[in-house]
């Protein structure tokens, strides 16, 4: 993976972590609220570790870019404040993430660390998938997000692996490279406090 691709991975983790942290306090069950928040924190932690590989100032890299400099995939940007879609995204994301992280493990020690933590994310996603797989709204959510999930991975071997694991047909992917409406909204809120002070201000 080159630097541009690593940045994409870092941005994916940051933005999905940001989206997942939206559920803190309002998840369907208190027990799940606590567990889900840990996942969001882990994702942000992964983003931070990846940014630190790419820059001396992880916060500046995370928050001080302009909108079009972010390299995240459309999947993570979507605002999905309903549980069926949130869990559908979580599940698809974890399946896809495992494929790309495994491919990275040999060249990047950090990937092995991330992978070990992701074990719990995968357990969590599989647990929910098991419970909800027969609920029509969950199935619909998975199908709706499927083209976006494909766009998370590069076309070719990785995408084929995703198709075979999820069991849905290959469709036209929503490719990385353009952003959805979700991102400006996130960016605005995510950077509002930071932008209110001069660059380099301590927080």
């Amino acid at each position: 993976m080159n630097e541009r691709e690593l940045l994409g991975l870092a941005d994916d983790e940051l933005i999905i972590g940001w989206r997942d942290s939206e559920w803190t306090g309002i998840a369907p069950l208190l027990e799940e609220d606590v567990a889900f928040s840990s996942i969001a924190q882990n994702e942000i932690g992964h983003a931070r570790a990846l940014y630190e590989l790419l820059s001396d100032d992880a916060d500046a890299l995370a928050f001080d870019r302009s909108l079009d400099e972010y390299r995240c995939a459309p999947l993570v940007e979507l605002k999905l404040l309903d549980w069926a879609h949130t869990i559908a995204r979580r599940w698809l994301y974890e399946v896809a993430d495992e494929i790309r992280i495994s491919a990275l493990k040999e060249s990047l020690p950090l990937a092995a660390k991330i992978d070990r933590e992701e074990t719990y994310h995968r357990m969590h996603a599989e647990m929910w998938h098991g419970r909800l797989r027969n609920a029509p709204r969950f199935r619909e959510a998975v199908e709706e997000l499927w083209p976006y999930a494909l766009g998370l991975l590069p076309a070719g071997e990785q995408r084929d692996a995703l198709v075979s694991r999820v069991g849905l047909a290959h469709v036209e992917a929503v490719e990385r490279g353009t952003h959805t409406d979700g991102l400006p909204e996130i960016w605005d809120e995510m950077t509002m406090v930071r932008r209110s002070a001069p660059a380099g201000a301590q927080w």
Partner: protein
Amino acid sequence: MIWEVFRQDRRGAPFEHAGSVVAPDAEFAEAWAREQYGRRGESVALWLAPRDAVHVVDDWADEFDLKYRRVDGYSIKARLKEARERAGTAGPR
């Protein structure tokens, strides 16, 4: 279903009751108890048991006040003082 959670602080320590989580099965109970009782690394192990599986014992018969079986059944201070005085080992109080 209510699951009782017992946690171990560090290796070798006793398992102590820490609370309970509501969960439909062991898989959910584990996922949730892990975070509720371990997210700050405060537990090295957990035991989870459905509340129904826990057999509560909280009443005892002590009709004849069998003090010899308890520490408070022995009052050695007075006799120890006397024994020391006799042996000449009683020091200043």
